């Protein structure tokens, strides 16, 4: 779990992913060819002669960006990604240079009237000059919190989507040798519009693409109806707001899970999308699917995941690769139907 803790600690606000990218590159050392794209995607290529498959997990996180400092040294911010004002209220922020502060809003403001554009980070500066000596405009800040494990329950910041990154890194390390041509791509700027994913497959043109991200659960009080439960296994995505996954790819994933006795769930998400929505358009159309790790309290400083779900996700990724190596003929036959 050291790896997951390191991953969730690392700074990687959309557009400023250098730190998390360096950490990931370090972990991938020696596993294959590593490259970085103009928008900051980190790719690992494990060459093979068989079918080309691309797994994508975004490494960026939502955060804030300093946009304006008032005369009293309060730092007004812009949201980077989908921030909810009432969730972010009174959170701890750490800027990329280490300076810490509290994200708040006027005490007199009603929760229902809260807007991100009215929120500021208090870094304890006495005035504008002092604040300007501590941080500069345009600097990004992440939401800070501790990593906790209790039994199989993980509570941490940015399990969305360092859990996905963890799964790809572990799978890359544990993969059995096979002749599939595999790419693991850690994409940038997913949280601000799937930007990295839009370019990820351009030079690769895989036969199949699978996004590994997170999804909501339907097992907390008064929540949106959903068949997904924490701890019941990684989800095979059927649909979300941005994609109805390719049925062939879904079948491959489901068969792989069944054959290796990996528990899984079926996911329908009525809000939200992932890198899969962008990958499906690349290269004249790619058969695209997605695997999702169930999480509760998404986009808060205390997201909750399940260790066994995470381990099963790693197993599932390896099982998919194995299936693609050994059963190409089956897939080609499926295609002809």
């Amino acid at each position: 779990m050291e790896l997951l803790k390191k991953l969730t600690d690392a700074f990687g606000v959309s557009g400023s992913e250098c730190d998390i990218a360096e950490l990931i590159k370090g972990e991938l050392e020696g596993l294959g060819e590593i490259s970085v794209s103009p928008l900051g995607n980190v790719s690992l290529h494990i060459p093979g002669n068989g079918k080309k498959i691309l797994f994508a997990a975004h490494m960026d996180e939502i955060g804030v960006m300093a946009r304006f400092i008032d005369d009293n040294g309060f730092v007004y911010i812009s949201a980077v990604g989908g921030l909810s004002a009432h969730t972010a209220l009174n959170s701890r922020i750490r800027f990329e240079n280490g300076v810490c502060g509290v994200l708040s809003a006027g005490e007199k403001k009603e929760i229902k009237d809260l807007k991100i554009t009215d929120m500021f980070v208090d870094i304890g500066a006495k005035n504008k000059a002092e604040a300007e000596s501590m941080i500069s405009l345009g600097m990004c800040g992440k939401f800070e919190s501790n990593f906790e494990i209790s039994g199989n329950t993980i509570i941490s910041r940015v399990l969305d989507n360092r859990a996905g990154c963890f799964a790809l890194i572990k799978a890359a390390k544990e993969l059995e040798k096979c002749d599939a041509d595999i790419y693991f791509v850690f994409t940038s700027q997913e949280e601000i519009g799937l930007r990295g994913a839009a370019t990820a497959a351009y030079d690769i043109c895989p036969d199949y693409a699978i996004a590994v991200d997170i999804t909501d659960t339907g097992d907390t009080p008064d929540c949106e109806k959903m068949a997904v439960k924490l701890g019941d296994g990684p989800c095979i995505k059927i649909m979300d707001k941005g994609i109805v996954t390719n049925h062939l790819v879904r079948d491959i994933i489901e068969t792989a899970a069944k054959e290796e006795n990996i528990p899984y769930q079926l996911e329908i998400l009525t809000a939200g999308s992932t890198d899969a929505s962008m990958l499906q358009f690349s290269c004249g159309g790619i058969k695209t699917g997605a695997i999702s790790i169930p999480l509760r309290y998404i986009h808060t400083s205390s997201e909750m995941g399940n260790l066994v779900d995470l381990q099963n996700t790693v197993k599932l990724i390896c099982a998919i690769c194995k299936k693609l190596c050994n059963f190409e003929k089956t897939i080609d036959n499926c295609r002809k139907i």
Partner: protein
Amino acid sequence: MLKELTSLSGISSYENDVLDYIYSTVKDHCDRIEHDSTDNLYCFKKGRKTGKTVMFTAHTDEVGFLVSGITDEGYLKFSSIGIDSRILLGLRVFVGKNRTPGVIGIKAVHLTTADERKKAVEEKNMYIDIGASSKEEAEKLTEKGDFIVFDSDYTEFGDGKVKAKALDDRVGCATLIKLIKEANFEYDTWCVFTVQEEVGLRGGRIAAKRILPDLFIALEATTCSYIPDMEKGKNVTNLGGGVALSYMDGGFMADRKLVGALIERAKERNILCQLKSYASGGNEVRAAQTVGRGVIAAALSVPCRYLHSPLTVMDKKDYEAMYLLAKEVAENLSALEVL
């Protein structure tokens, strides 16, 4: 040149007059000049060095309206592109190629109720009066789908200020024309005058896909709000504060290394420069950034008050600063160390 450019009509998808003017101005200064099926104008300048391709864009279209119908009495119904409908009542406009004058009318205030005066009039209830007394008479002058522009003259006023329609983005066009004529380009550069930015960055996206540049710079106009909003930085920029740069606009990030390097370079060369204090608006960086394997991109903007209205106001200092910084990129890109 800015005066001439802003007086031309160029609503999204009707940019011909602007494109023709630009073509005649730059054609003898380019190594190659082409256009595509949407009418984007591509001007190629050979660089001193090879190995990288740079792209600048400025969009030729302005906000305005299209005729959506003609009433039996000869009034025009219209649909706007990118305009806040609350500024429309009482405005003068020109309709179509013939520049038929018209006004956006409203019933006299004396005839309104207190309730009516409290609510904004919806665009679908507005009309343009071109002085026709019947549908047939109006149909001789215009038709459904025809374009409508603001009636607003280029005026210099105050302390170095300019008022005109379409400063967004004729400031970009004028800057790009000047670059083509005067800059000594370091790398091969495509200077593209794009179409249909205001309806969704359409021409810019197509142009970026055709060129697949290594570096992309959009030359734009950006917003500068009222003085009272300065308190929380919601004015976004200050007139006279210099060319505006931003790390983040409406939902997308420019290349941070590039923006940082541009701010440094502006400081070194004493070019007036400011950082936007509010993430707002969109520009062609959003469309160009995700083409191909990804493009390193940023925007340079002239701050303008009253954007998307007939009386957009800018400060000449900022306009000059944008040219100077754009010239730095064009002539000394390698020194920025971003590619």
